[in-house]
């Protein structure tokens, strides 16, 4: 049996209250008032499509062997790099083996469903190991646009394999039609959009149903038997209308998460699929549609193994890990829509030595340190001489993954002097419970609610951006686990 073996999702903690954005811009464009309700997921300044994809993939892989993964596919229209493999960065952050197929899918809202197809095809071709399908999206939109409030940031991930399949792959049908509801040229920052009514009438209500009908016919699935119908919609109830047109029960249309997350681009069908799998029972049929210049329609049927998969953080966990953001200016600044005066201190931005970065890639991408072969002390950075004063053994260390190790804040401060896009900069000594410590950035904190002894989880984030040389640097930071008991 071929299909999904695990899943995960990640929605950033910040949620912009849409009303504040709508009220700020209504003077200019009253159409944004239609987007006044609910909230949208908002990436922190140090999050992007890659960092969110890493979190989603960690969720999918949690509690599972990762040495067996043979392929990773990363879909997005907002990959941080145009020419540096984003899927390779993702694999590095997950500390996956270097003998791996890594591939980026981009260029359309179908990039997310494309990763599922790629991963399924990879597995179907008989390659060893599981494959990963991951999609993450962090789209920017101009101030005062409808999209700015409609969109959200998120990622979702699936592992695909043949053992312990929780959702069997029934098959798929894809179409490619140059139906341009919006586009963005390779060198453009922002999208260009056509009229919504045309997109609804000619796109959602014609092109999409035709593709779904073809898929159902090809796979011999009765529309009425579909339990979970997954179609990212740009307005409420649109997915239900499409379902009805396809002979699928309107009630099977999944919540599009528009009210509390927003439309997360290429990641959205995968995000909704992950959400559906959280709710699904064994033996249910799911249809997933990716729509962007044509459609990918995929069909799955859940198995008994679904109940045996440990509960994921996924969409429900992400929705619960939430912090309201009412500062629309901050949203604009984080998205670099607003040009902030960063001050002279921000000018200090050393060149990224690619040689240095390469030598230390496993530490920088995967937070892999060393463990002394003599005394067993975990340490970061890994060194040739053990840091334990009572040991100081000289020799190569064994690799030690810190990323998932429980840790606590040992010392900290909130620094108003140093440059950060979100002052005050929080950093401190982070101590791992099973050994090892280092001075780390703290992220996703609540000002006034950071303390010594606080539990933290390490997360892969943007360490800094170098506009002069056009590079984004990544490293791991400590995110407080709010609600956890202090040491």
């Amino acid at each position, binding site marked *: 049996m071929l299909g999904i073996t695990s899943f995960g999702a990640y929605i950033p903690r910040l949620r912009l209250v849409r009303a504040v954005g709508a009220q700020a811009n209504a003077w200019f464009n009253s159409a944004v008032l239609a987007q006044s309700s609910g909230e949208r997921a908002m990436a922190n300044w140090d999050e992007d499509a890659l960092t969110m994809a890493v979190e989603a993939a960690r969720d999918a892989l949690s509690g599972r062997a990762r040495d067996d993964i043979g392929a990773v596919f990363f879909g997005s229209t907002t990959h941080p790099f145009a020419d540096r493999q984003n899927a390779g960065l993702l694999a590095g952050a997950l500390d996956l083996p270097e003998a791996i197929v890594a591939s980026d899918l981009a260029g359309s809202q179908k990039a997310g469903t494309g990763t599922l197809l790629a991963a399924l095809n990879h597995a179907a071709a008989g390659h060893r190991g599981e494959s990963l399908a991951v999609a993450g999206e962090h789209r920017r939109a101009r101030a005062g646009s409808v999209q700015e409030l409609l969109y959200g940031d998120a990622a979702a991930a699936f592992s695909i394999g043949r053992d312990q399949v929780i959702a069997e792959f029934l098959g798929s049908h894809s179409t490619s039609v140059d139906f341009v509801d919006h586009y963005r040229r390779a060198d453009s920052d922002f999208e260009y959009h056509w009229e919504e009514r045309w997109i609804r009438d000619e796109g959602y209500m014609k092109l999409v149903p035709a593709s779904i009908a073809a898929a159902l016919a090809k796979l011999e699935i009765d529309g009425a038997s579909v339990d979970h119908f997954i179609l990212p919609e740009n307005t409420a109830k649109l997915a239900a209308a499409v379902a009805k047109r396809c002979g699928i029960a309107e009630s099977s249309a999944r919540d599009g998460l528009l009210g509390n997350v927003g439309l997360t681009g290429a990641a959205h069908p995968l995000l909704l699929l992950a959400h559906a799998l959280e709710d699904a029972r064994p033996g249910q049929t799911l249809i997933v549609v990716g729509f962007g210049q044509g459609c990918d329609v995929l069909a799955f049927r859940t198995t008994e193994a679904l109940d045996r998969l440990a509960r994921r953080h996924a969409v429900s966990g992400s929705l619960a890990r939430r912090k309201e953001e009412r500062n629309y200016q901050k949203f604009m600044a984080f998205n670099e829509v607003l040009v902030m005066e960063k*001050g*002279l*201190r921000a000018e*200090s931005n*050393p*060149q*990224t*030595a690619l*040689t*240095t*970065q390469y030598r*230390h890639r496993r*530490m*920088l991408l995967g937070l892999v340190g060393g463990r002394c072969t003599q005394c067993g*002390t975990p*340490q*970061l*950075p890994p*060194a040739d001489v053990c*840091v*334990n*004063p009572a040991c100081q053994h000289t020799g190569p260390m064994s690799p030690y993954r810190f990323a998932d190790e429980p840790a606590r804040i*040992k*010392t*900290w*401060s*909130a*620094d*108003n*002097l*140093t*440059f*950060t896009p979100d002052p*005050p*900069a929080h*950093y*401190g*000594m982070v*101590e*791992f419970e099973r*050994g*090892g*410590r*280092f*001075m*780390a*950035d703290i992220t996703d904190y609540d000002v006034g609610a950071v303390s*010594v*002894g606080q539990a933290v989880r390490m997360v892969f984030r943007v*360490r*800094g951006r170098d506009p002069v040389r056009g590079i984004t*640097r990544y*490293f791991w930071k400590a995110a407080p686990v709010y609600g956890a008991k202090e040491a």
Partner: protein
Amino acid sequence: MASGIKDKVVILGMGCTRFGERWDAGAEELMVEAFDEALGDAGIGRKEIGAAWLGSCMDEVNIGKSALPASIALRLDNIPVTRVENYCATGTEAFRGAVYAVAAGACDIALAIGVEKLKDTGYGGLPGLDIGTMPPLWWPNLSAPGVFAQVASAYMKKFNVSRDELKRALAEISAKSHVNGAKNPKAHLQKAVSCDAILAAPMIAEPLGLFDCCGVSDGAACAIVTTPEIAQSLGKKADELVAIKALQLSLSNGAEGGYNAWDGAYIPTTRKASSRAYAEAGIRDPRKELSMIEVHDCFSITELVTMEDLGISAEGGAIRDIMDGFYNADGKIPCQIDGGLKCFGHPIGASGIRMVYEMYLQLSGRAGARQLPAPVYGLTHNLGGFPHQNVVGISVVGRYR
């Protein structure tokens, strides 16, 4: 077995510029200003100097690399000049080079000069450090107040001290230095400030406010050192000579920042360097024997833990001593009698030598309005880097024999 530095080297002359925002002067002019004073004090000409050490830290805004800027600005006589840099302990490092050269017999008279021109950055606070290619890839964007504030968080936790209690003690530390600085015509900040004003100041790095941070200043300081015999041959009286009693340095080896043992509430290197210095100087009980101390009060919290790390206040007892006035000008061991880094200012490369300069003036009875009665031993404590990985330089000076 090493015999130590005690009484092998004496100070022949010293000089120190006015510290502050010296918009009028670059590093070269500052060096000449300090050097001229030292030459006059020593009563020698520049050609009598056999070797020199230059301490400067911030390549980025100061004089760049090598010792050439000092050799050129001071028109030294083609002698060996070495530039040293060890973060904020740079000044002590330059002093150490000169003292050891004389003790080794490598030259008769040696010069140590430290200088920093910090106010060419366009903003307040220290300029960003060039830290190599790897640290920028994984270190936080550390600022000096941000890293030293870490000590405060650990101290509060370790000794169960409330934020208010700690803040009050830190304010007393800064207020005391302001009182002292007001009596020092060369100090950057010469105005007394109330504890209330200190507590009301803007936050820089939690819990350190503006007045918990030392001045960022331009300045230079220098020392000319020689043997007691040569000093006497040049007309100095043996019983007026100020001798180096101890000179110690201790550096972190990565354990504090990488191994789960250190609690973050003290500086282990200060403990090591000071205990070695006491042994070298023959001091058994620093709380009883030291007359005055100049410590590295880059931040008030640094001064607080240093009191304990020097073995003067008991562990967890610094707050009590501070509130009791133990370290005030009229206390048992006056600390920062010249205003310290806090008010004299902190031109990095000069600071370690500036501390010795004050001890030298006090021991020579030339400290003016802030002169202490009959000091015997003075200690300087110079700290560079970060609490979790640092360089500590300690010197003890006193009357010769």
